[in-house]
């Protein structure tokens, strides 16, 4: 009471603690420097790396919904596919010359269409238990899958969408045979969307998602519009998955029913759980490990790579909660305790 104008030491500390959480950490900066360095480190693996960036974006999308808001979903693969076909069709009918073929506009088309469908279906996941949500999101994914296969005249059916011809990125960089432009483009898009997601989860909005995950009864009691928040995050996540799909269609110049297949959703969730949900980086790490394992194990034992992936996953879930990042967190905490004791 003695001094109203200057904050107390506790208040200063609290401000520092809260704001400190949104500061970029050293590990984060190293992560992104390494991601950029991959361009020179693995010049022959650039299309694999683009694919990892795209998978990471889908896993990031699942993280927003599942890791932060606690809503289980098997629908992200559908939004990915919708984004891929929307952007693919736009590029196809733009014939590589008109504005429709512009990749960046294509991202907004893919993300936008996915977001609209995400928004429309978000109302289905507001109610019910985890199990009903799984069923509903899976149902939506299966419907999309079926629609893509049936609308042969538009999507090419099981043959896939041929002749996707995106023009040069920003009118400057043509997609090349070595996947250089594709990698840089994918990484830049991933980074931009990551930065936005990062701001989002560290904002009051992001905090409210974690609160919803923690205790819905209390969030309602403090006057939070829970449904509006869930609709918002589900729509944003659909946009992210849609952009990832658009990226995939543009960089591979193709879209096929495999892009909307159910396993996409399951894979994305697997990657996230693998890396650690609710950390933003979990999905990115998960996609790196998942896709690298697939590549390496696939070369050694083409038939059994999924078996080894499964073994690793079961071990991870059994022995460490919270995936790879959870493991790192625990190790860091143990190390700090040891350091504090000495």
């Amino acid at each position, binding site marked *: 009471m003695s001094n109203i104008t200057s904050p107390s030491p506790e*208040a200063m500390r609290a401000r520092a603690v809260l704001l400190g959480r949104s500061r970029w950490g050293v590990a984060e900066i190293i992560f992104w420097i390494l991601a950029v360095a991959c361009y020179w480190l693995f010049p022959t693996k650039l299309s694999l790396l683009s694919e990892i960036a795209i998978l990471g974006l889908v896993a990031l999308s699942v993280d927003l919904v599942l890791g932060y808001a606690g809503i289980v979903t098997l629908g992200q693969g559908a939004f990915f596919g919708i984004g891929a076909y929307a952007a693919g069709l736009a590029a196809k009918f733009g014939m590589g010359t008109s504005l429709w073929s512009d990749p960046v506009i294509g991202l907004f088309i893919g993300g936008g269409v996915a977001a609209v469908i995400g928004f429309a279906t978000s109302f289905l996941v507001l109610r019910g238990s985890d199990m009903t949500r799984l069923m509903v999101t899976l149902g939506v994914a299966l419907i999309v899958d079926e629609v893509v296969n049936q609308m042969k005249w538009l999507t090419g059916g099981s043959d896939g969408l041929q002749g996707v011809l995106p023009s040069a990125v920003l009118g400057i960089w043509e997609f090349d045979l070595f996947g250089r432009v594709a990698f840089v483009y994918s990484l830049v898009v991933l980074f931009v969307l990551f930065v936005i997601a990062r701001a989002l989860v560290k904002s009051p909005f992001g905090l409210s998602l*974690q609160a919803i995950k923690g*205790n819905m009864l209390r969030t309602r009691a403090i006057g939070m519009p829970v449904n509006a928040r869930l609709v918002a995050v589900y729509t944003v996540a659909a946009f992210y998955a849609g952009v990832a799909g658009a990226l995939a269609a543009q960089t591979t110049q193709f879209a096929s029913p495999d892009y909307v297949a159910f396993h996409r959703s399951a894979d994305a969730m697997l990657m996230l759980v693998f890396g650690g949900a609710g950390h933003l980086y979990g999905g990115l790490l998960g996609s790196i490990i998942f896709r690298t394992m697939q590549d390496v194990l696939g070369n050694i034992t083409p038939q059994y790579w999924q078996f080894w992936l499964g073994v690793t996953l079961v071990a991870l879930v059994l022995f460490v909660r919270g995936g790879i990042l959870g493991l790192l967190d625990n190790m860091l905490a143990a190390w700090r305790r040891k350091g504090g004791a000495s």
Partner: protein
Amino acid sequence: MSPRILLESRDLVKRFGGITATDHVTFSLPEGARHALIGPNGAGKTTFINLLSGVLTPTSGEIFLDGANVTHWSARKRAHAGLARTFQINQLFADLTPIETLMLTIAEREGEGSSWWRPVGARTDFVDEAVALLAQLGISDIAHARVGQLAYGKQRLLEIAVALAQKPKVLLLDEPAAGVPEHEREQILDVVAALPKDVALILIEHDMHLVFRFAKSISVLVNGGLFVEGTPDEIANDPRVRQVYLGEEEVHV
């Protein structure tokens, strides 16, 4: 002039299948009230609070909050209209810290809960308010700890802090000291006693010493119905109340 009625129920009924948990309760709470709601286990006290706060919808009857008919309002809307409550069983965010919990509540109160471009903590006025609240409840020391790891008594205090952060006109406290060790109960009840004068309070509590220390008026709920209402003296000397509590606890001032 009679005091303004902030919260009112008219002929409120709630049935769960065959059980009538709230039985035609007509009740009013004036500005600045210090009202205790007592009654044996299973009398329907929590159900009544759940109806008032919008967690449950009544089978029949009406609820008024500061003059507005809120019977069909959501819990969220009632919260924004000035109603706050605590829960008999902690309903907190285990993965957040107390300071984050309060930041969230304050942001929601001020309509800033959906702001997404600025980090939590950018509104320094909110931070200062949250810090002051923790100090008011004597839990500044655990401001940055994970709520799920706090001692039970600290969590009970945080329950109250969250409700206070809503700056309510009406505050419903459902056994705030339940399950708390003896020496910490005093602290919680001191906090309750020191709540802002203009807030209308309902306290549910089984410990009669605390009830009689706090309350200016008391209602006794039995089998879902209002059994008697009166001043602490009237209730303490009412033979029927003694009878209800017989075998449970002696009623004395």
